[in-house]
C-alpha cells in the first residue's frame, strides 16, 4: 500500500512539472513584454500553441529518415524522465533514489545528442549550423555542470539531489564562497542550455544568432509540439534544480502527508515565479553576445566550477 502511495506522489510530481512547464515559459514571455511596455500574449498562450500544433498535419521532407521522426519523442521522454528525478515540491520521492545528478546531466546530454542528429538528418545547411553550434556550447556547458555537481557532492557527501537538498536545509552548511561560485556557474550553464538571451535568442529566426531554433526549423505539427514541450520542460528543470539545491526552504519531505505536499507545491510555484521573473529581468537588461564570445562565457562558468571545487578542497584539507 505504501509503495502505491509513493508511486502516486511521484506521478503527481511528473504531471505537475508537465502542466507547469508551458506556464513558466508563458510567464517569462509575459514579464518580458511588460518590461518592454507591451501587452504580451496571455499566460496560457503556450498551451494553445501546443494544442494547435498537435492538431496540425506533419510535413516531412523527402530526405527525412526514421531518425528525424523518432527524435522528438526520444528528446521529450529523456527530458521528462530527467525532470521526474529533480525534487520539486518534495524530496525523497521514489524515483529520486534511482538516479543522481550525474544521471540527470547524462539524460539531458542524450536529449541534446538526438536533437543535434535530427538537425543534421534533413541535410539543410541551417540544421547543420544549429547542430554544430549546439555541440560547441555543450562541450563547455556539460563539464561546467559536472564541476558544479562535484562541488555540491564534495560538500554534501552525495550526488543525490534529495540528499544535497536535505544537507542544504541543515545548519552544517555555513558560509561558503564555493556555493556562491557554484550558483553563478550553474545559472550560466542554465542560461546557455536553455538558449536564453546572452547565448541564443529564443524569440527570433535570425540566422546569424539562432542555435536551438535552427535545429528544429524543419519540424512541424505534432513533432514540433513535442519538441517545444521538451524545451519548456528543460527550462523548468533547470529552475527546479537551482531552487532545490540553493534555496531548499519550504520543500516537503516524502511521507509527511497531504498538507505538507500541498504547502510544498505552493512554495514551489512561488519559487518558479521568482525564478522566471529574475530570468525575464536579466534577459531584458542584457544584449545578445556574438556566437564566438559564447566559449568565453561558458569558459567562465567552467572556471567558476573548477575554482569552487578547488577552494572546497583547501577547506577540507585545512
Amino acid at each position, binding site marked *: 500500500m505504501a509503495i502505491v502511495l509513493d508511486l502516486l506522489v511521484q506521478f503527481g510530481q511528473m504531471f505537475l512539472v508537465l502542466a507547469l512547464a508551458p506556464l513558466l515559459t508563458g510567464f517569462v514571455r509575459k514579464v518580458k513584454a511588460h518590461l518592454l511596455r507591451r501587452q504580451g500574449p496571455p499566460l496560457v498562450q503556450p498551451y494553445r500553441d501546443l494544442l494547435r500544433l498537435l492538431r496540425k498535419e506533419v510535413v516531412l521532407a523527402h530526405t527525412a529518415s526514421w531518425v528525424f521522426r523518432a527524435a522528438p519523442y526520444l528528446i521529450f521522454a529523456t527530458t521528462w524522465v530527467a525532470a521526474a528525478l529533480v525534487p520539486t515540491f518534495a524530496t525523497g520521492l521514489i524515483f529520486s533514489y534511482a538516479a543522481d545528478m550525474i544521471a540527470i546531466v547524462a539524460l539531458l546530454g542524450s536529449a541534446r545528442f538526438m536533437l543535434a542528429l535530427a538537425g543534421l538528418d534533413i541535410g539543410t545547411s541551417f540544421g547543420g549550423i544549429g547542430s554544430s553550434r549546439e555541440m560547441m556550447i555543450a562541450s563547455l556547458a556539460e563539464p561546467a555542470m559536472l564541476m558544479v555537481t562535484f562541488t555540491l557532492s564534495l560538500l554534501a557527501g552525495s550526488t543525490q539531489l534529495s540528499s544535497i537538498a536535505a544537507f542544504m536545509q541543515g545548519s552544517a552548511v555555513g558560509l*561558503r564562497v564555493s556555493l556562491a561560485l557554484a550558483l553563478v556557474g550553474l545559472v550560466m550553464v542554465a542560461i546557455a542550455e536553455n538558449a536564453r538571451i546572452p547565448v541564443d535568442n529564443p524569440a527570433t529566426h535570425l540566422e546569424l544568432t539562432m542555435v536551438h531554433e535552427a535545429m528544429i526549423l524543419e519540424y512541424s505539427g505534432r513533432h514540433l509540439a513535442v519538441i517545444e514541450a521538451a524545451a519548456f520542460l528543460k527550462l523548468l528543470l533547470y529552475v527546479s534544480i537551482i531552487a532545490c539545491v540553493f534555496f531548499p526552504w519550504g520543500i516537503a519531505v516524502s511521507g509527511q502527508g497531504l498538507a505538507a505536499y500541498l504547502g510544498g507545491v505552493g512554495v514551489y510555484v512561488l519559487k518558479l515565479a521568482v525564478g522566471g521573473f529574475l530570468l525575464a529581468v536579466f534577459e531584458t537588461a542584457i544584449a545578445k553576445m556574438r556566437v564566438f564570445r559564447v*566559449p568565453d562565457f561558458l569558459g*567562465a562558468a567552467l572556471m567558476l566550477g573548477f*575554482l569552487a571545487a*578547488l577552494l572546497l578542497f*583547501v577547506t577540507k584539507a*585545512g
Partner: protein
Amino acid sequence: MDQLALDVAHLFAGGLVLVSFMLLYQDRMTGLVNVFALHALVVSSSVAWQANIQQAPHLYITAAIALAVKAFVIPMALHRIIVRLGIHREIDPVVGIGQTMLAGIGLVALSIMVMLPITAQAGTLAREDLAFALSVVLLGLLMMISRRNAVSQVIGFMSIENGLILAATGAKGMPLVVEISVAFSILVALIVIGVFLFRIRERFDSVDIHTLHEHRGEQP
C-alpha cells in the same frame, strides 16, 4: 576560533582568488582598473577581518593603507594615465582569454598542491591564506606575461603585491614598518612606471612592450 569566523576569512581569501581571475577575464582597460580597485578592496577587507579574529590591531593599519592607496589613489592615477594615453579599449592579450584562464586554473591547482603538504603543521587559517596567496601571486605573474600592454603589466604587478600582503597576514602578521615601507615603495614604483610609460609612448608611439623587443634588436 569558531567556525563562522574561519568561514568569513575563507570567503574573503577565496574571493581574492576569484577577483584575480576577473582581472584575467577583462577585455577593456577601464574595467581592468576598476576590477583592480575591487581586488584591493577585497584584500583590505580580508586583512581587517583577520585583524579582528587574530586580535592584532596593527593589521587594521595595514588594511587602511591597502584600502587608501590601492583601492583609491592608484586606480585614480591609472585612470588618468589611461585617459591621457588614449588606450581605454586596448588590452592585447598574447594568447586568448580562454587559454589564459585555463592556465590560471592550473596555477591555482599547483599552488594548492604545493602549499597544503608543506604547511601541514600550521593552523587552518595560515594554511588557507598561504595557498590562496601563492595562487594570487602566480595569477599576477601570469597576467604580466600574458599581456602586451604596459598598463596591464603594472596592474599584474600590483596584484602580486596584494597576494603578498595576504600571505604576510596569515603568517601572524608582519611588522608595521615593513608594511609601510612596502606601501611607499609601491607608490614610488607607480610614479616611476607612470613616467616610464610616457617615455615609452614618446619614443615608440605605443605602450605595446613588443616594440621594446624590436628596439633591442630581438626578433619577435
